[in-house]
């Protein structure tokens, strides 16, 4: 069910924005003056290694923690649909998928069934939560987030535990949802091997913003290097991510070898990519 979006974020400004956000834990710096924004209709993917501060950034954006520095600006009345990385309800909790969905927002059964069909798991409506697979769980979580008719979807590691074929399918689904619901999407991934053309912008985090594919962001942070960006239609860009942190490498948009980038990739870019590893 598509719905007209009379909510916040018509055309003016980002739905949500992290401005100069810093988070410390004891004397460790988890986030160091991070800027990030997501606009309506945009899919932004945050990548970074384990412990790079991605989860902390998401928690700050969601309002679960208050950053010590900087601020989070949300459009007034912003509705967020959130899909956490894991869910550990105790197996002793007898909860069906239908019941789980309505914990977020009450909804008639028909709508629940339609929504599950939309995300591709029509047959789990009456299954116990404890019995569904990891891939099904991600879709059920997505359905619960969508039930709130969100302006912004925040999906933390939606591809974890999903095989490669399932990953690209899920990515396609997320892109479809963005179009259908006209919402902004913030994705998080710890080891992003497959960045589909559906992602509009990649932001690489290692406590600070290392690099971002969005040209405007790059010019705002000249000290950081643009690595991604120019999203190439229908192309899987494989992002080799074993970087050991250098900041002085100048980078251009780099589709890496691996999965073929047949037609749309500009050959010059491809050539550059062959010679240089993506480091940030």
């Amino acid at each position, binding site marked *: 069910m598509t719905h007209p979006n009379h909510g916040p974020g018509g055309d003016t400004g980002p739905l949500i924005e992290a401005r100069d956000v810093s988070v410390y834990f004891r004397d460790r710096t988890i986030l160091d003056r991070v800027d990030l924004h997501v606009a309506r209709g945009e899919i932004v993917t945050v990548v970074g290694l384990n412990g790079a501060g991605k989860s902390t950034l998401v928690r700050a954006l969601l309002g679960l923690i208050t950053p010590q520095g900087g601020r989070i600006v949300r459009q007034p009345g912003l509705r967020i649909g*959130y899909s956490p990385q894991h869910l550990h*309800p105790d197996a002793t*909790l*007898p*909860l069906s998928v239908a019941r789980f969905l309505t914990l977020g927002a009450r909804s008639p059964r028909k709508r629940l069934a339609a929504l599950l069909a939309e995300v591709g798991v029509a047959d789990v409506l009456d299954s116990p939560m404890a019995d569904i697979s990891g891939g099904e769980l991600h879709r059920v979580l997505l359905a619960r987030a969508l039930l709130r008719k969100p302006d912004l979807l925040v999906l933390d590691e939606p591809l974890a535990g999903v095989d490669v074929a399932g990953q690209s399918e899920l990515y396609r689904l997320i892109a479809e949802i963005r179009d259908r619901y006209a919402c902004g999407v913030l994705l998080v991934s710890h080891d992003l091997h497959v960045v589909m053309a559906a992602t509009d912008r990649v932001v690489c985090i290692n406590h600070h913003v290392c690099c971002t594919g969005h040209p405007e962001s790059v010019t705002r942070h000249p000290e950081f290097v643009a690595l991604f960006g120019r999203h190439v239609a229908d192309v899987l860009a494989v992002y080799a991510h074993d970087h050991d942190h250098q900041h002085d490498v100048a980078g251009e948009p780099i589709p890496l070898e691996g999965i073929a980038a047949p037609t749309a990739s500009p050959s010059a870019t491809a050539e550059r990519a062959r010679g240089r590893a993506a480091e940030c």
Partner: protein
Amino acid sequence: MEDFFLRALLGGTGVALAAGPIGCFIVWRRMVYFGAALAHSALLGVALGFLLGIDLSIGVVALCAVLAVLFVLLERQHRLPTDTLLGVLAHVALAAGLVVVAFLTTLRVDLMGYLFGDILAVTDTDLAVIVVLAVITLAGIALLWRSLLSITVDEDLAAVEGVPVTGVRLAFVLMVAGVVAIGMKIVGMLLILSLIIIPAAAARRLSTTPEQMAILAMVIGVLSVVIGLYASLHWDLPSGPLVVVTAALFFAISQAMPRARPLSIHPHTRSAGR
């Protein structure tokens, strides 16, 4: 029927009714050790109640409530693992309780009664405290049911969806404190936790929804109390242990029964590939 026995039956029923849904959430949220820690501190509440010159049951309720809130606040600081924190809190409170009770030579405490429950000891005031707290707990659970389920599944998700997580958790630990305090009268501080969690555990196998499990736990709890108390009267044996043994029998029976499956419109669609 003797007055004291009627009071014990009514009081025990009140405790079992409140303990049913509370026990379910304790099991779901893996807070058994938290409940045990509160129960261990009850004796200190008795002593403090005596020192302050207030009703001893109210002393227990008050101390359990203070410790529950203290625990929630301490836990938020993440200085120690939760189970370590509880271990410290529980046994320090028990030791302190024993020391203070021994120190107060004017306080004649029936220690066995507090440890294992004593149906003879249920006074009218006790019964009133039990009824009031049981009603408050059940009303609170009913009111917060959706929010409690939501934070039990995932606290972050609940918070993003607008549930006031800290407030709900605080309300919940206070309700646990209330049930521990009133349950102590019936089965004693060493056994109260079993009256809270065994009916919930027994109900699990037979339930497909959270509501079913809570109601079934209430039924099993009440049956355990009634059967246990009658057995206690009949054989002149300690009431608390008999109530718990009865609950354990229900648990054993539930384990032998076939597991409840959810009602499904398409029962065969999910059979493959699991």
